[in-house]
């Protein structure tokens, strides 16, 4: 039987890697993907605890996180497309003026 601390450590490592990606990447789409990685890490923690305490509502929360991530990805990517259209770049360092 694999101890839940293994899963939680993996979740922490993935979350940390997501934070590193978010802080250091320049492409706006890759930033967004790092956020998704963080959400996935949290989902893993939810499922682990749901099994630990036989509390099925942990899986319900995972379900909701996935749905909200879907809605967020749709709107976020639409915003990114607009951003690329208006600023002609996907590099966050160059998107630093409120008005063109």
């Amino acid at each position, binding site marked *: 039987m*694999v*101890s*839940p*601390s293994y*899963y*939680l*450590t*993996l*979740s*922490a*490592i*993935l979350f*940390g*890697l*997501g*934070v*590193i990606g978010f*802080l*250091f*990447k*320049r492409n706006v*789409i*890759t930033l967004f*993907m790092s956020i*998704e*990685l963080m959400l*996935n890490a949290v*989902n*893993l923690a939810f*499922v*682990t605890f*749901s*099994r*630990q*305490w*036989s509390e*099925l*509502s942990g*899986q*319900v929360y*995972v*379900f*909701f996180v*996935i*749905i*909200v*991530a*879907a*809605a*967020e990805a*749709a*709107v976020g*990517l*639409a915003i*990114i*497309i*607009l951003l690329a259209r208006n600023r002609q770049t*996907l*590099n966050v*360092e160059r998107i630093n003026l409120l008005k063109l």
Partner: protein
Amino acid sequence: MTLELGLFVVLAAVAIAGAISLILARHPIRSALSLIVVMVALAGLYLLQGADFIAAVQVIVYAGAIMVLFVFVIMLLNAGEEERTSWSRMAHYAGIPLAIYLTVQFAWWVADGASALGLPTAPAESESTRRLAHLLFREFVLPFELTAILILVAILGTVVLGRRES
């Protein structure tokens, strides 16, 4: 080394390799592919813990629909390789060691705290889909309906944002 531990190690290694590849890749399409690998590995980990339905939903919705959206946008915007500016180089040299230290420290704290947890009390149950559905449509029916409205709002928002100014 039981089969379960072996599977955990393999899937965890694949997930971490995918996450590192996400960060190190210079082209966004490689990052997207790495993230898909991470998601499928995580679905395998959910299966290992007995969360069948969530594993299926993760692959169908997250890896099979949301990431397709990402891949589409990358293809449409013809995103190229990332450029290395002076700011980004400085951030890399100063920041990466610190960030790695923070991640390792965080994982260490979690491992330390979680080792106090024993093994799960009850074995993984079957028929979990039915019980999950009962939970979802009774105790959590209000959030469920709210997410339906949320998705409707997201669709409307995306359509409005995607309209060309005439």
